[in-house]
C-alpha cells in the first residue's frame, strides 16, 4: 500500500529526520482536503492536529467585535499550519480558513505528543523545527508591528 512517507520525507520540515522518526510521523499522518471557504479550525477548539500544506492557501484570522474577522497571516504551499497542539492547553488561538482549494497532510498532534514523550530524540528534533517556524513568524510579526508603510515620511 502506498503511504504518505515519500511525500513527507521530501518536505523541508521533515527532510533530514532519522528514517525511523519519519516512519513514526507517517503513522500519525493522513491526507486531507479543504474547499475554498471551509473552516479548518476555530479559536478555542481543541488543537489536536497540525497540517503540512501541499497546495492551496489558508488564512489565519482573529475575530474582533465591531471589526469582524481580520486576517493576520496567510499560509501557502509548503507552509506548516498550527503549533498549538504542542503547547498546553492545546487549544487553537486563531481561526484557520481555506481561501482556495487546499490539499494538506494532517498530522495527529495527540499521537505525536505521545511519541515525542516516549522518544525524546524525536521530540527534540520536532521542537527545533517548530522553533524555527515560530522564529520566522515572530520576525514577520515584529516587522509588521513597525507599520513601516505609514505616511509619516516612510516609503
Amino acid at each position, binding site marked *: 500500500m502506498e503511504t504518505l512517507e515519500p511525500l513527507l520525507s521530501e518536505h523541508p520540515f521533515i527532510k533530514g529526520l532519522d528514517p525511523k522518526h519519519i516512519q513514526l510521523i507517517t503513522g500519525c499522518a493522513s491526507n486531507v482536503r479543504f474547499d475554498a471557504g471551509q473552516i479548518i479550525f476555530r479559536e478555542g477548539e481543541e488543537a489536536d492536529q497540525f497540517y503540512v500544506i501541499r497546495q492551496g492557501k489558508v488564512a489565519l484570522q482573529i475575530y474582533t467585535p465591531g471589526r469582524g474577522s481580520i486576517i493576520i*497571516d496567510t499560509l501557502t504551499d509548503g507552509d506548516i499550519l498550527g503549533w498549538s497542539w504542542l503547547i498546553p492547553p492545546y487549544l487553537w488561538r486563531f481561526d484557520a480558513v481555506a481561501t482556495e482549494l487546499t490539499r494538506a497532510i494532517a498530522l495527529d498532534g495527540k499521537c505525536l505528543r505521545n511519541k515525542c514523550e516516549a522518544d525524546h530524540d524525536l521530540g527534540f528534533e520536532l521542537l527545533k523545527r517548530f522553533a524555527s517556524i515560530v522564529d520566522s513568524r515572530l520576525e514577520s510579526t515584529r516587522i*509588521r508591528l513597525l507599520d513601516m508603510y505609514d505616511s509619516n515620511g516612510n516609503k
Partner: protein
Amino acid sequence: MIATEINKNLENKIAVEMIPEFFRILHVQRDTQDTFTLELEPPKSGFTFAPGQFNMLYHFGVGEVPISICGDPAINDKLTHTIRAVGTVTKSMQKMKKGEVLGVRGPFGSHWPVEELVGNDIVIVAGGIGLPPLRSSIYYILASREKYGKVVLLYGTRTPNDILYRKELEQWRARFDMEVHVTVDRAAADWKGNVGVVTTLIQRSHFDPFNTVAMIVGPEIMMRFTIQELQKRGVVPENIFISMERNMKCGIGFCGHCQCGSTFICKDGPVYPFKAIKDILVKREI
C-alpha cells in the same frame, strides 16, 4: 586662468541644473487615499531618463520635492510621477488640476543597471510607495522580455486599499512570463490575497538564486530584511541593488542635504549596489 575657466563651467552647469522648466499637467490620477499620479507635458519633446532616476518637482510658491520618475522610459513626450501626499509640498500638489504648471529639474541620479542584467533572472521587491521608482525598470525589462530570465515582482503594502497600479499588477500577473506576488500587512476576511510581510514571498518565488539580480525599494528596514532573505536563498550581495532616499535638495551633490557618509544620494545614488552602501545602511549615526 584654467581655474577661472573651471569655475565658470561649474557656475554654468549649476545655473542650468538649478533652473526649473515649466511642465503642464496633462492628467491627474487618484491612486489611493494619499497617493496620486501626475502626467506632465514637457515644454519641448524629448525628455529622456533612465529607470530609477528622479526629478525635483517645484510647486511654485510652496516648495520643491524629489520624486522618482515612474513612467515608461521609451516614452519621451510625457513624464509620469506617482506622489504620496505626506508633507506641505506634496499635500499641496495633491490639489493640483489638469492644465496647471509645475517646475521640473532633472533627471538626476544613478539608475538601475537594466542593460547589464540581460541573461539574468530578475527579482524586483517593492514596499509601499517603493513600487513607483521600480515601475520604469519593469517597463524597460518587459519591452525586451526575451533578453531576461525569470522576472519576479514582489510587492508589499499596508492594506488592500493601499495597493498601487492595481490594473497593471493584474495585467502583469496575467502574463505567462512574469511572476507577481502581492501581500499586505493586514486585511479583512474578504481579502483573497496574501497577508504577511513582503520578505515571506521570497521563499515562495521561483528563480535561480545563483543567476539572479535583485532590485529593492522600500523603507530601509524592509530593504534590510529583504536583503537577508535574498541572501538566505543564495543571492550574492554583488547582485543586489537598492534605492536610497534622503532629503534631496539641489539634486547635483552641491548642497550636502542628502550626504550619507561619503556619498551624496542625489548624485551618486539613489540607486546603489548593496555592496557599496551596506556599511552605511547599518550605521545608526547617519
